[in-house]
């Protein structure tokens, strides 16, 4: 791994237009998913008279707060299909968007610490292989070979008993991803409108016909919700419910260090996930706070637990310092899978429930959600992720692959 140079930026990557009085479609939320959706609406469906409305600044929500892990080693066919498609898009997007956001396929390791973990992990490796997802099972020696700073001795509380490994997984520079999408959206004619908070919806019967914002009313034929942690708040404004609970999720970074950590390591069991950013910070994610919260901050004991796990697994981190901690608001579902599809309100669509792990899904969420908004029907990849699954019982339980917040 090298400490790569980030690209130089021009002063402006997108315009800051005033909102028009009407659009063909309005996307609520200018995070990664909102921007990717707008990009694919314009590029694949020729819908360029559209706007992305963001209440704060562009990509200042979870998009700016995540630990950027990208992987596709989920258990079930439905998840493997959408996450693997996403990973394939990550592999071509830097060229397509003409923007190097430092997608680094340095591999992701998911550690196993108990016999249950081992069995579950091996099962997942098998399932991944059957779905064309690159996956390997590593024994502790192989783990050590790939990541020499990991402590694989058996005198710790939860010794490393092996790991799953996905070589094509990795990390990317999250805010550059957002800027890459934003620049292309802008080039295609999409209006990106910051400081524009949606405060309500205009409906004609059960059909949405406009949005109310702090910058006036905007008429629109279609609305796509990409509000992550605030999805329930927007759904309530529109008059329907979502099976979402919003929780604080925290992460932190150390000061800059020489490159010491060549891959990405995640542990469900002792609960920490660590990579080293291009600049050199150790980036570590914690678990969600147990309670519902919109405060973009969580409790300190969660960080304390995460640090204890990190230091046990990586003894050399004991001398690193925590430089910054922060929180985002994640939109969790009970089956740890996203919701992408239609809503009970006509012409209103929702993309949410990506919870602790939606950064990796950004390209596929954008692609499939744009398809759903443009055609009114699901793309084959998001069809299983419709809201109806909570009624039919066809849940997609990814707690094993997603239990560690990531």
């Amino acid at each position, binding site marked *: 791994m090298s400490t790569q140079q980030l690209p130089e930026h021009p002063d402006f990557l997108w315009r800051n237009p005033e909102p028009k009085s009407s659009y063909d479609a309005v996307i609520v939320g200018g995070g990664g998913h909102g921007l990717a959706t707008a990009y694919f609406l314009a590029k694949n469906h020729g819908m360029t008279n559209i706007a992305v409305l963001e209440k704060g600044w562009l990509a200042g929500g979870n998009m700016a707060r995540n630990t950027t892990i990208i992987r596709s080693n989920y258990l079930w066919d439905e998840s493997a299909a959408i996450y693997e498609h996403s990973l394939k898009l990550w592999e071509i997007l830097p060229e397509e968007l003409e923007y190097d956001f430092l997608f680094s396929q340095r591999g992701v390791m998911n550690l196993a610490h108990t016999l249950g973990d081992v069995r579950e992990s091996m099962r997942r490796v098998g399932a991944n292989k059957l779905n064309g997802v690159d996956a390997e099972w590593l024994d502790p020696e192989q783990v050590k070979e790939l990541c020499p700073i990991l402590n694989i001795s058996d005198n710790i509380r939860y010794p490393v008993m092996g790991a799953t490994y996905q070589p094509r997984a990795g990390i990317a520079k999250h805010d550059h991803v957002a800027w890459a999408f934003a620049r292309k959206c802008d080039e295609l004619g999409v209006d990106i409108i910051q400081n524009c908070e949606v405060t309500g919806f205009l409906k004609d019967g059960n059909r949405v016909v406009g949005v109310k914002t702090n910058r006036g009313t905007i008429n629109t034929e279609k609305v796509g919700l990409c509000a992550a942690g605030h999805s329930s708040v927007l759904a309530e404004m529109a008059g329907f419910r979502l099976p979402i609970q919003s929780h604080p999720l925290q992460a932190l970074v150390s000061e800059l260090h020489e490159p010491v950590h060549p891959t990405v390591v995640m542990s469900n069991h002792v609960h920490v996930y660590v990579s080293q950013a291009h600049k050199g910070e150790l980036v570590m994610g914690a678990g969600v706070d147990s309670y519902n919260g*919109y405060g973009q901050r969580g409790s300190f004991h969660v960080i304390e637990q995460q640090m204890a796990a990190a230091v046990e697994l990586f003894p050399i981190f004991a001398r690193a310092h925590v430089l910054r901690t922060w929180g985002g608001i994640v939109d969790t579902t009970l089956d740890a899978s996203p919701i992408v599809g239609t809503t009970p309100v006509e012409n209103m669509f929702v993309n949410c429930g990506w919870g602790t792990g939606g950064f990796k899904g950004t390209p596929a969420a954008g692609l499939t959600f744009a398809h759903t908004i443009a055609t009114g029907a699901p793309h084959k990849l998001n069809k299983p992720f419709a809201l109806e699954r909570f009624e039919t019982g066809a849940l997609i339980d990814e707690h094993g692959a997603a239990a560690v917040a990531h």
Partner: protein
Amino acid sequence: MLLIPCPNCGPRDETEFHYGGQAHVPYPKDPAALNDREWAELLFYRDNPKGAFAERWVHSTGCRQWFNMLRDTVSYDIQAVYPTGAPRPDSATTTSASPEGAVQ
């Protein structure tokens, strides 16, 4: 870390408690009469307000009793603690201002 006023033990650290999610979700009187939509509501749908929220907590490492708490999900202020089964006390305020955290 929240400082939670257990009705039985007094103020204790959040780490002594477990969260139980939304309070006042009654078990259906006649479960067999529910349709799929109603079952989905009961099993998977919970309120998720930005502001005052009535929720359940259990003091796992103390008295081990469940109780209800009214808490603001933005400021995290605890507004009231009351017994399971008692009606939700009227909440005085609902906050909507959202403090911004550090950004990386």
